């Protein structure tokens, strides 16, 4: 086993900080930068000696709520953990459910899921990068990130009918087909974004102030990233080539030619730049999806058969799926299934245990932000107080996602 260089100071956790010569600063929960969580930062002079994240301010006990609902009703529920990345977070649940039900997804639906997942990923990264900008008070990056995110939300809205809460993937397929003019509009959006990324580099990522604030800050070593089970861009920026899209068979990723970007430095700047790399890759995937997408049904044959012929006709006309009545009470056979899906923030993990009733016996969801929470505890130690927002910004932590 490679020796880990991060000191896991469990002794320190047990230590009472009362009476120590430290300056305790509470960041959050009502605070311009922290969002719905609180940090107790302990300082020795200007140096951080300990950070205690206090989470749970937006906890909704989703796992319990899921136990009280029929299977399909939990899709909009889990969506609300990461509303900025809703197709990716629900896709994990839907995949696990499909494994339990033994449903095959038709190819066109798999491509459409991939399409929306990548649109979501771009939007999620722009959100994270915008926040990384405002954490060092770069308001232009903040506004640009959030502004350009609107383009991808518009595309998602045209595909699904909702701006954020798409509720798009359902067991056996997706809920609506590609609109006529979608390809043309999406390609325009991609070309615009490529042009804009150059300006992003000039005004933010290559800006000497940004480089000074983010370079060589909060370095996460490769071995630590592996041992701590860090996920997503934070992991890949530390040189580990792991992505749930390579692992789990979902969407159309097996049929699409794409690369998983990796950076070696492991510092805050490389975590940000890796997201830019991923935006580029995602745009490339969208191009390929629009090029390769096969014709055919968007819902599994098994369910299509249950829909009355008259409704099937309206389905073809409007491109919107009607549910078979069975959906109100899906009953998977007893058993368990796991699924992993790569979200913008990293890998989400689902474990469903079914007892054969219409409601799950247990649903376990571990979100990427919850796994990355360890970073906020270990990375800032030894850095200056002003580095704390920079590290927080670079980790792309999303409180409602961690709290569930």
């Amino acid at each position: 086993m490679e020796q880990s260089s991060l000191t896991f100071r469990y002794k320190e956790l047990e230590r009472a900080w009362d009476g120590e010569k430290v300056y305790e600063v509470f960041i959050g929960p009502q605070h311009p930068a922290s969002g719905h969580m609180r940090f107790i930062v302990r300082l020795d002079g200007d140096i951080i000696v300990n950070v205690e994240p206090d989470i749970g301010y937006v906890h909704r006990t989703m796992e319990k709520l899921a136990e009280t609902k029929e299977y399909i009703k939990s899709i909009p529920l889990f969506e609300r953990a990461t509303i900025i990345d809703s197709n990716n977070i629900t896709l994990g649940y839907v995949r696990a459910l499909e494994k339990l039900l033994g449903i095959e997804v038709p190819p066109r639906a798999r491509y459409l899921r991939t399409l929306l997942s990548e649109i979501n990923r771009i939007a999620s990264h722009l959100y994270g990068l915008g926040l990384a900008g405002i954490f060092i008070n770069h308001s232009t990056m903040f506004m640009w990130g959030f502004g350009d995110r609107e383009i991808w939300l518009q595309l998602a809205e045209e595909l699904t009918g909702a701006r954020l809460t798409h509720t798009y993937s359902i067991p056996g397929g997706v809920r609506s087909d590609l609109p006529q003019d979608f390809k043309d509009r999406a390609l325009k959006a991609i070309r615009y974004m490529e042009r804009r990324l150059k300006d992003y580099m000039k005004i933010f990522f290559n800006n000497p102030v940004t480089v000074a604030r983010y370079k060589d800050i909060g370095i996460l070593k490769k071995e630590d990233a592996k041992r701590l089970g860090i996920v997503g861009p934070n992991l890949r920026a530390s040189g580990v080539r792991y992505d749930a899209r390579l692992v789990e068979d979902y969407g159309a990723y097996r049929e699409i030619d794409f690369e998983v970007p990796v950076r070696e430095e492991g510092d805050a700047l490389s975590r940000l730049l890796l997201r830019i790399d991923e935006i580029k890759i995602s745009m490339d995937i969208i191009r390929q999806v629009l090029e390769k997408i096969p014709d055919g049904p968007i819902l599994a044959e098994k369910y299509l058969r249950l829909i009355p012929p008259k409704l099937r006709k309206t389905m073809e006309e409007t491109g919107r799926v009607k549910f078979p009545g069975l959906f109100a009470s899906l009953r998977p056979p007893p058993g368990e299934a796991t699924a992993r899906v790569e979200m913008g923030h990293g890998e989400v993990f689902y474990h469903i245990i079914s007892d054969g009733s219409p409601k799950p016996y247990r649903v376990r969801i571990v979100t990427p932000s919850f796994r990355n929470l360890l970073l906020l505890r270990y990375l800032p130690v030894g850095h200056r107080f002003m580095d704390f927002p920079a590290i927080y910004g670079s980790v792309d932590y999303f409180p409602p996602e961690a709290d569930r």
Partner: protein
Amino acid sequence: MNLREKIEEKLKDIATSIEYPRPDLIVIAVNRDRIMEAAQRIVELGFDHLASVEGVDLPKENAIEVIYHAESYEEELRNTIVELKTRVARDDPKLQSLINVWPNALYLERETWDMLGVVFEGHPELKRLLLPPWWDDIPPLRKDYKVKVEGIIVGTK
């Protein structure tokens, strides 16, 4: 030697059962007192971090099942999830903490304590994580904690 054979060789003497319910999932059940040993052997196989720790309340069997899902970032192992599970008594749910085997169990175990009341012995930080600090009801993920459910019919005049 493929992964299944490796796992069976490594764990057959302490596992009470090893199952393969799905192509990407290996389920290993052990007794409560062998959990640390089993975990160490799984880490030696390369599954060096956890995807999840969860508890499943089984009131009929008067037990809580604690499930660890381990995964790996190595190319040859990453397609598989190893599920290690054990049972603890429902009225005295104690288990050895695995934070020294899997460091990222820190928050995952703490959440399981928070939600199901499983006490992880040796965990340095068993205090409220997601629930409010003043919570004194039964742990919410226990089956006897009931959520109010509404009907779908409303009667009118």
